[in-house]
């Protein structure tokens, strides 16, 4: 090869082809997929919780994309139907995830609606799931002698609560749980542009 111009133009052409397929076409076809009917926008609290979800890197172990029966028994595990583009209309960025070190969370709000369970599980996962390898998040909580008015006290299974003290959820924990409970795509799917 003797010409750097031809080299670089060739290289840019191949990249342009790839970008057209993986970025530009999806930009025009699925970027602005209409929200599925039944999907509500996040509230301000839920959005702050979503920021916590990202901040603590929950998506590195939990996916948000149940797959079809042909792929995996996700529905049988209670993780919900396979998702479509319209299910992510309010997700910026989408948190599809690449690992299932823990279970899929796209419908965790439908599966586990208890605030106390979520708070306690964040404080110490092994209090609820004995062999869990999820990290504990004690820094989302405060341990006090007694709670003040308006604060949320976490009720833990026996043996996991610090003796003579109460575990109080910090606002970050409450927001995160509010987001987790909003994860509910149990309404029927509408076939979008995807198949």
């Amino acid at each position, binding site marked *: *090869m*003797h*010409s*750097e111009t031809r*080299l*670089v133009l*060739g*290289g*840019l052409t*191949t*990249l342009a*082809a*790839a*970008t057209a*397929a*993986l*970025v530009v076409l*999806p930009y025009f*076809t*699925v*970027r602005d*997929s209409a929200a599925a009917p039944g999907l509500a926008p996040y509230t301000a609290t839920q959005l702050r919780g979503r920021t916590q979800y*990202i*901040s*603590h*890197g*929950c*998506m*590195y*172990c939990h996916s948000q*994309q149940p*797959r*079809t029966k042909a*792929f*995996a*028994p996700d529905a*049988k*595990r209670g993780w919900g139907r*396979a*998702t479509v583009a319209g299910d*992510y209309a309010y997700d*910026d*960025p*989408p948190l*599809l995830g*690449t*690992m*299932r070190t*823990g*279970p899929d969370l796209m419908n965790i709000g439908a599966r586990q609606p208890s605030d106390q369970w979520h708070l306690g599980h964040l404080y110490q*996962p*092994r209090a609820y799931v004995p*062999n*869990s*390898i*999820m*990290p504990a998040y*004690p*820094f989302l909580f405060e341990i006090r002698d007694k709670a003040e008015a308006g604060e949320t006290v976490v009720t833990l299974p026996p043996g996991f609560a610090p003796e003579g003290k109460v575990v109080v959820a910090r606002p970050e924990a409450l927001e995160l749980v509010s987001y987790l409970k909003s994860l509910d795509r149990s309404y029927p799917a509408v076939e979008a542009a*995807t198949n």
Partner: protein
Amino acid sequence: MNTLAILMSAFILSIVGLGFFIWSQRSRPASTTTDGSEVIFAKGELGHPESITQSISTAHGPAASDNLELQARVRADASTAQVVFFFYCCAFVWLLVASAAGLTASIKLHSPDWLVSQAWLSFGRIRTIHLNAVAYGWAPMAGLGTALFIIPRLLKTELVGARYALLGAALWNAALVSGLGSLAYGVSDGMEWLEIPWQIDLLFVAGGALVGVPLILTLLQRKVAHLYVSVWYMGCALFWFPILFFVANFPGLHHGVEAATMNWWFGHNVLGLFYTPLALASIYYLLPKLIGRPIQSYNLSLLGFWGLAFFYGQVGGHHLIGGPVPGWLVTLSIVQSMMMILPVAAFTVNQHLTLKGHLSALRHSPTLQFLCLGGLMYTASSLQGSFEALRSMNAVTHFTHYTVAHAHLGLYGFVSMVFFGAIYFVVPRITGRDWPWPRLIAAHFWLAAIGIAIYFVSLTIGGWLQGSAMLDESRGFMESVALTLPYLKGRSVGGALMALGHVVFAAHFARLLIGERRRAQGTASPLKTATGAL
């Protein structure tokens, strides 16, 4: 359109496209008598490995070599010495940071109550710090440093405007420090490989552009007619990466599942169109230099290069198999993942034929050991990646540790190994000092090789079992977690060996530098002629 039709048309388009490319880019046959693969050798150099003795005696010896080409090479090395040294120092720092963060994350997966009181040490953050320190610290600093060293040699000229690259590297590292700080503090853009906030990305863009300036200026000053294979890879990589990075991080542009397809277009292309070409370019240059014979086939390297350029860019969609994205996109990516076998085979055959009959050189050259292992792992990880993209295999491996093992085979077994080898080759040539303790190089090699072997085998088996358990609806989800524990511990053992290897590597580098300072403070004795070809 049905899947078969998409598959066939994507396949035919690819083949026709690739054919057209190679035709349009081929060498004019009458331009040179040789095919260009000998351009990296000076007169009389064929048949001999490039030894450090030669460079140093040409530079400092009283009876300077009368070989003008060798003198030009020494001037090229001198013009890059300072800037390459800076890149490598940064690479060492990030290698150590990334190793510490990676090992911490690994241990946390089987000891989840270890170090939980600090948010920045929690798995989700320290894992991300590990990834970003590798992706934007170690790999680009080592790869760009090597490119800055090799390109002036290949173009037979001096590096023009090295100061821009120095300033660029300073900005880049400042960006990375703030980026990792931001991730530790919990501010993240939320997409894998693109976590660093876009405000900080502006600094990366400025730094990266400044690093590119001297490379373009040098290209325009070239004194060779023929562009060697390594220049294709490095030249294109330096244009590809800024585009990828800029498009991917542009705020407000991407949304919904389109952001997910863009995410993996970026994520896979950082590997395929940035680290991989930088590492392959290093092999294409260093391997022939170390055994003293040109690469076997110019045409195979042409096929290898344009095949990679054409197919690799489109494989990212295989990260979304089974996901809520358009079916045609996933199918296209699967087809192109399989097509990658073509350039990988071309590279592998070429390297094999080049090395044939010269394997004894492996015993004497640690650089060659790293490069050969890296080259082998390129073949292994690429073939594995192609088959992992098939739906049947992907259904098992997709959400498991198997993928993590594969990623490390590529980025460590291949890319990092090649960069280790390149650093062992380059450092004596820019500092004028040979590595003081060759045994430490062997120690580093074996720690890295055995470490990645344990890492890869553990996670591959553990990941496969995990995936199989998840697909079996009669087994509870927790079973898929519990059965991975021994393999996660195995990974920590492998990772610890790798990290130890890096400490040895860095300590050896530090010793080399300290040795030089002592020497410089002493009498003005000429540099002792070092021996041996690294």
